[in-house]
């Protein structure tokens, strides 16, 4: 594609080459679609966060005084449904996967740009259904839609919400198919599988789960809607159905869905850790294959959500064993990251702070997962705040920390502006402190037996709950700060024109303009070296060479 010169003084990039609304809404450019996703999921994140704030405000005092129990149920359901289906599932794949995948592998775009745009529209249609369902009286089933409550008893627009989740699910499948094909077929010459950045490996594993898992939950929720509409006893025992079947089908997707949220974050952490330690990721092959291992084993552990709900005891033993196995690839990743940092030249920029935060919190989240995977302790901890704390450590402490690390790391590449570093560090600190203050007390509460999903509780748990609510205020502030300073930086941030402000490795830093050209690369690159090639004698300080011009003849030729 011939590069037309943009005459507005600034160099042509994907942001300024067309500026009409239509050029955004009908764009096929993977980078612009990523921005569309970024804007929409940021709004959903704030909505879901607001619902969480209301939930914590109610729990500040033991009495159920702020909300009635009905409204409380609707609030935590709205929080869960919005955060999981409208924020966490699309977060890193749809925003950073879309933006970075073609750049990282040296392609002009993803394999199917129109499918990519379609996935955003389908996602927005699904989001509209979910939000309308919430606004028209709300849903009180929780994000799990357990039957028979959701199919026979719950009032409100449950079916509409299910249609919404069905649609967002298909948006996720489209993204997954697109990425699988892109990684298989769109790699630049020389970009072999083992030269791929680890983020790409993580996205590959994520896409596998999206394609294999999501259709199952789609059909399952559709059956719930059918049962609601026609009173057919698929899952309601009073009509001859089997509620355990629902749980099997639901968790067959929804447990791997946790890995849809955490695997991309792990990919981001690999990138950030190596860029800010200026070292090649230790044990590259192990980290790459551990992503695949997590994706595959993740499909075999769904029964650990059902130890106490009537599943066979022997099935429970097998699921417990398999769940413990997932800890192995997760530990491989964590230890390899630590080995990467060891003896590295560590730079304490904001993305690195988030990455280090991720490592700490993910370890706590993962290890408490083992407490829950063990049969005996699970009986004590099932449906208590211990579970709530555990999955928030993984999803918020893991996935959202990874998301924020990615947002800060690639922000200059995406926008051509640098975020204010001081504010960034402050926000990272607030998020870390606020997060631990919010969720660590919940481990203790859960251990003492406080059940989840109740809007009031006995007096003796007041102090820890108050701590948790106070922490959530700090956490909320920590999330609000980036919203403000990142928006501010779009206009007032330091302009970044150099390709590689972090001195990082990877095609997106070394060969792509900041912000990228609409066509990404001037010409298709040939890759001649592995990922994270920091240890090169030529550039001991992480200085990046300019691409060498092709000289015909002469002493170079």
């Amino acid at each position: 594609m011939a590069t037309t010169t943009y005459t507005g003084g600034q160099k042509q990039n994907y942001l300024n080459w067309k500026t009409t609304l239509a050029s955004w809404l009908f764009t096929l450019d993977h980078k612009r679609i990523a921005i569309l996703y970024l804007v929409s999921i940021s709004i959903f994140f704030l909505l879901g966060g607001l619902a969480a704030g209301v939930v914590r405000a109610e729990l500040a005092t033991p009495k159920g005084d702020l909300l009635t129990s009905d409204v409380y149920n609707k609030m935590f359901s709205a929080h869960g449904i919005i955060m999981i289906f409208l924020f966490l599932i699309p977060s890193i794949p749809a925003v950073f996967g879309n933006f970075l995948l073609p750049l990282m592998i040296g392609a002009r775009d993803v394999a199917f740009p129109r499918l990519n745009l379609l996935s955003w529209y389908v996602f927005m249609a699904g989001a509209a259904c979910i939000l309308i369902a919430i606004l028209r009286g709300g849903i009180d089933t929780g994000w799990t839609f357990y039957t028979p409550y959701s199919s026979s008893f719950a009032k409100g627009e449950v079916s509409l919400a299910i249609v919404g989740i069905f649609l967002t699910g298909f948006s996720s499948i489209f993204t997954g198919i697109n990425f699988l094909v892109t990684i298989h077929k769109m790699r630049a010459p020389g970009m072999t599988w083992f030269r791929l950045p680890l983020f790409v490996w993580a996205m590959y594993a994520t896409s596998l789960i999206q394609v294999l898992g999501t259709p199952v939950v789609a059909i399952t929720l559709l059956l719930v809607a059918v049962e609601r509409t026609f009173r057919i006893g698929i899952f309601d025992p009073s009509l001859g159905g089997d509620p355990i079947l629902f749980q099997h089908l639901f968790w067959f997707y929804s447990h791997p869905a946790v890995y849809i949220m955490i695997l991309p974050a792990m990919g981001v952490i690999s990138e950030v850790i190596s860029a800010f330690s200026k070292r090649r990721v230790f044990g590259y092959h192990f980290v790459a294959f551990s992503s695949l291992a997590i994706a595959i084993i993740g499909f075999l552990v769904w029964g650990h959500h059902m130890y106490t709900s009537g599943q066979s005891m022997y099935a429970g033993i097998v699921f417990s064993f398999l769940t413990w196995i997932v800890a192995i690839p997760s530990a491989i990743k964590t230890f390899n990251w630590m080995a990467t940092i060891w003896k590295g030249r560590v730079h304490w920029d904001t993305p690195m702070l988030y990455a280090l935060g991720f490592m700490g919190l993910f370890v706590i989240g993962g290890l408490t997962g083992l407490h829950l995977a063990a049969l005996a302790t699970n009986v004590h901890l099932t449906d208590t705040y211990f579970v709530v704390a555990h999955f928030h450590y993984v999803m918020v402490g893991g996935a959202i920390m990874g998301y924020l690390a990615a947002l800060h790391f690639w922000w200059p590449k995406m926008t051509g502006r640098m975020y204010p570093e001081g504010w960034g560090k402050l926000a990272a600190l607030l998020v870390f402190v606020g997060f631990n203050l919010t969720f660590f007390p919940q481990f203790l509460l859960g251990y003492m037996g406080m059940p989840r999903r109740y809007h009031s509780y006995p007096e003796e748990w007041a102090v820890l709950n108050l701590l948790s609510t106070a922490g959530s205020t700090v956490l909320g502030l920590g999330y609000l700060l980036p919203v403000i300073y990142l928006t501010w930086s779009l206009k007032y941030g330091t302009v970044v024109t150099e390709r590689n402000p972090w001195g990082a490795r990877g095609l997106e830093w070394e060969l792509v303009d900041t912000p990228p050209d609409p066509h990404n690369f001037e010409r298709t690159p040939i890759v001649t070296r592995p990922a994270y090639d920091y240890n090169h004698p030529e550039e001991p300080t992480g200085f990046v060479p300019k691409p060498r011009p092709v000289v015909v003849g002469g002493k170079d030729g």
Partner: protein
Amino acid sequence: MSIQELGKQSATLEYTGEVHHHADGILGEQFETLEQQNTAYLIGMWAFIVQEVLFFGAIFTAYAVYRFKYVLEFTLAHHELSVPIGTLNTFVLLFSSYTMARAVRAAMQNRHTKQAFYLLLTFLFAGVFMVNKYFEYGAKFEHHLFPNAYYSAHEIVEHAKAKGELRVVVEDGREMYELGKTIRGEFKPFKKVSPEEFEQRTKLFFGFYFVMTGLHGLHVLVGMIVIAILIGRALIDHMKNKPIADYMPVEMTGLYWHLVDIVWIFLFPLLYLIGR
């Protein structure tokens, strides 16, 4: 050679000298070669088919669970489905797969009218399938076998009684159904259920029947829309006298159509044939 020079050679990212071009408007801007584009489409389509297999797989699993749990009730409900229409539809779909394969072949040879002809045949077969479905569904509505509030197991009970597979007994002043078989004039009961349970369980069968065949029918409809578009494209290619056209859309629709066919090949025995 010093280590620095060695490093320079191995570590520099280079550009290719190639400038990519668009092969007659067929090659997408993001692809380098037509071969890359075609295999990308194929992998994408296969990934979509895997997704579809899991989509239908989940509901097949649920169906299998209840077929096992309520085998006698489901068997009696099976008998209400029309095997002749199901068989006819199976053959119609098999023929449509054949004509679709011929259409793909014609597309690969760039024979536009032949391609349009076979696509039209496929479209018509699909239409016949849907018309048969319409009459089949209509009959179920008429006999109160559509699983809504007007559902009634009355006809299933009557037919089963006539065949000697169900007997009404009175127990503690309550009517109960005994399900079993009449062997040499003697009724052997296997299971006793209340009329309400019997109604619920046969309704569950028809719930599965309508969801599974309905989803399948929806896939047929989507296929018909795509085929109609392809017919239009083939005719335009013919009128423009295009020597070479992109055959991949037909190839991919063909893959999709065979998937739709295969799903039916599983639905037909599972719903119509077993239990007879």
